[in-house]
Every structure is written in C-alpha cells, then in structure tokens.
C-alpha cells in the first residue's frame, strides 16, 4: 500500500471518462510543449520526406507531393509521458501505410528522424494498419512549429514522445535501435496503458 498523503483529496476530473485515462495520467485542455532543444524552422521549399533504410529504393516526396497524397482525418486521445493526456485531438495526415505502399521489406523496426537531430524507434507493426500517420494539420489548421510543424509523426497509442516532431523521414531496419529519449532513460516501447515510462518499467 502506498503511504496516504494526509489531507490530500485531489481535484477529481468528473467530466472525464476515467476509462480513457491510462494509469498516472490526467486530462488537460491545454497543449503543453516538450522538446529537448530549440524549435527548428524548415521552410516548405526545403522540406522533403524520405522512406529509406532496408528497402530496395528509397522514396522521397516534396512538400507539394506529400500533401497531394491521400490523407486521413483522425481523432484520437494522446498521452504524454509527463502525465498529461489530451482527449479527442484531431489530425490530418498521410498514413504510414500509404507511404510504404509498394515497398518490399523484411524490416521489423523503424526509426523516425527529424530536423534538429531527434530520433525515435518503433516496431514497424506499430505504425501501419491504421496506427501511424505523418500529420501536418492539427484541428484543421497547419501544425504549429512548436508542436512539430510542418509535420510530425502521429502514433497515438504510444506515449507522445514516439510521435516525433519535425519528422523528415523514416528508416526501416532489421534491428531495433534506441532513439533519443529511449537512450536517455525512457522506455523502449512506451505503452501508456502499461505505464511503460522509464527503462525500469
């Protein structure tokens, strides 16, 4: 039994369905920002997105080509490892499945890489099949730079650091390689429902 914090009652969120909050999370209406360094500002002229690594030929798109691809609008709950969750966030983007269309690969892992040097690693199975997107709109508006614009990865079923901001490409790999936060003490997989925050979880 954890110790009782004498006199603590908390501000219980009665308006939020508790079954939508993973353990240790609270709901917020704000959209907090967490980044390890300065926000990069890449102009759309210089922006491209590349799928590379363990595939025959890398595929690459300019910004115009990217936003001309079939897109999806998805509404999902997101969960940050720093304890906040935001329910019913709406994003527009291209599914990773669409980006991988026609590629042959035996890879089982992906690493997303970003402007600013950030990386994060995920099993391939966690970004296909309706689980991962490269999103460029939030709530119908272009994605703000501080929230990852022009485009960020969106993998809402994992802690939100896996939804890499300022994403510029994904590399497919046979071997799993820890990304940025995964090398600094955060869990390699990051399932919020199992509260996989840190290495020791």
């Amino acid at each position, binding site marked *: 039994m*954890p*110790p*009782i*914090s*004498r*006199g*603590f*009652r*908390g*501000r*219980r969120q009665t308006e939020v369905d508790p079954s939508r909050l993973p353990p*240790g999370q*609270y709901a*917020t209406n*704000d959209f*907090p*920002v*967490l*980044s*390890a*360094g*300065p*926000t*990069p500002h890449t102009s759309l002229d210089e922006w491209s997105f590349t799928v590379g690594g363990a595939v025959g030929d890398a595929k690459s798109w300019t910004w115009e080509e990217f936003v001309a691809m079939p897109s999806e609008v998805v509404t999902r709950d997101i969960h940050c490892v*720093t*304890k*906040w969750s935001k329910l019913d966030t709406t994003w527009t983007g291209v599914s990773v499945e669409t980006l991988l269309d026609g590629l042959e690969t035996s890879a089982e892992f992906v690493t997303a890489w970003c402007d*600013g*040097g950030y990386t994060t690693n995920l099993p391939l199975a966690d970004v296909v099949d309706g689980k991962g997107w490269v999103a460029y709109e939030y709530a119908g508006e272009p994605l703000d730079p*501080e929230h990852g614009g022009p485009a960020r990865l969106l993998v809402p079923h994992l802690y939100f650091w896996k939804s890499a901001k300022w994403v510029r490409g994904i590399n497919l790999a046979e071997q799993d390689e820890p990304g*940025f*936060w995964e*090398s*600094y*003490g955060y869990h390699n997989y990051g399932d919020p429902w199992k509260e996989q925050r*840190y290495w020791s979880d």
Partner: protein
Amino acid sequence: MRVETPQAKTLVLDVPDWPGHLPGQHVDVRLTAEDGYQSERSYSIASAPGTADLELTVERIDDGEVSPWLTEEAQPGDQFELRGPVGGYFVWDATLEGPVLLVAGGSGLVPLMAILRHHENTGSSADLRLLLSARALEDVLYRSELERFRDVVHLTLTREQPPPEWNGWSRRIDADMLRDVGPGADQHPHVYVCGPTPFVEEAARLLVELGHLPAAVHTERFGPSGG
C-alpha cells in the same frame, strides 16, 4: 520547508535509499488520498548531488492538483511517493569541459540552481554564467543565496528595476542581453534553458540566431498545465 517566494516553497525530503542524481534531473511525485485516489506530477530537483537531503522547489499552480497540497497542506512528517531521478539529457556533469550558460525564466531556475550549486560544490573551474528572468524581485527564488553568486548571475526583471547591486536589466530577454551575458557562441558553451514554454521558445530561438549550435542548447519547458 522553506518559503522561497509568495508562490513557492522548498520541500526538504528524507528519502530512504536515494540512489543519487545529476543536476538538472527531476522526480515524479505521487500523492495518494485516503480512498486510494492518486495524482502524479514531475518536479525538478533543486539540491546538488551529494548533499544530505533531497530538495524540491515547488511553485503553487492555483488550479493545479499536486502543487497546492505540496505548498499549502504538507507538514513536516507527511509522506508521499517519489520516483526518480528521471531524465538523462537535461543534465550537467562536472567532468564536462567547456563553459556553461544557464538561462532561467521564473521557476525554471530550479534545475539550473542544482547545476549552479553542483558547480560550486565540485570546485569546477568551468566558466559558468546564469541569466535569470523574473517578473519582480519578490518572485526570485533563492534570492539571498544568489547574492553570493552575484558576479556570475545576471538578473532581468520584466516589471520593475533590479536593485543597483545586481548586474541587471528591466526588460524581456533579447539578443543584446544574451550577448552581454556570454559566453559567446564561439566559445561553444553548454547551454541550458528552462522556463515556461514561450520563454524557452524565445530564448532558444535567440541563442540559435546568435550562432549557438542547436545541439548545444538543452531545453526544458514548463507547460501551462504543470502543477
């Protein structure tokens, strides 16, 4: 417990089996109500490694859930759960070579204070400077302790003039101020910026404009829903 400002207190904690920490790291605090309801938030560690007690400085967020209890309700002898230390990136190691620039907005000073204290305790010869932005003098954490570091601490207050004994300004942070504080980008300092999100966004943008490598600029942000 020590009162730091009208909004902030330092909690001195006796943590059994504390494994030690690096300056800049934080902990997760979990409070449990009598009926089992729990709430968790993260707080930066203010104390330097190797000191007897673990110290957290907590600013009260009025509509927060955990900080009002920590700052208003908690009494000596009360218990809660603590997890950590957490975070391996926003840290300064005394064995790192090269100068250090700390840029703090408001209560973003807390993890940077751990770095400043560690720098002093280890007798580090690294050229270290701190730029602190606060609204008013009464909002400055650790004010009397900072007076000892006056030659490396620069203070800018956004709502009043700093007292004459301080290196200081009365305006928001800008490029000229960062240039005056130094060390310049040509000396490749390790830079640590901590504060509310708009402050960190602006400071980090200015630092990159001044030529600091983005990879040398470590940031930690306090969102509006902290607390």
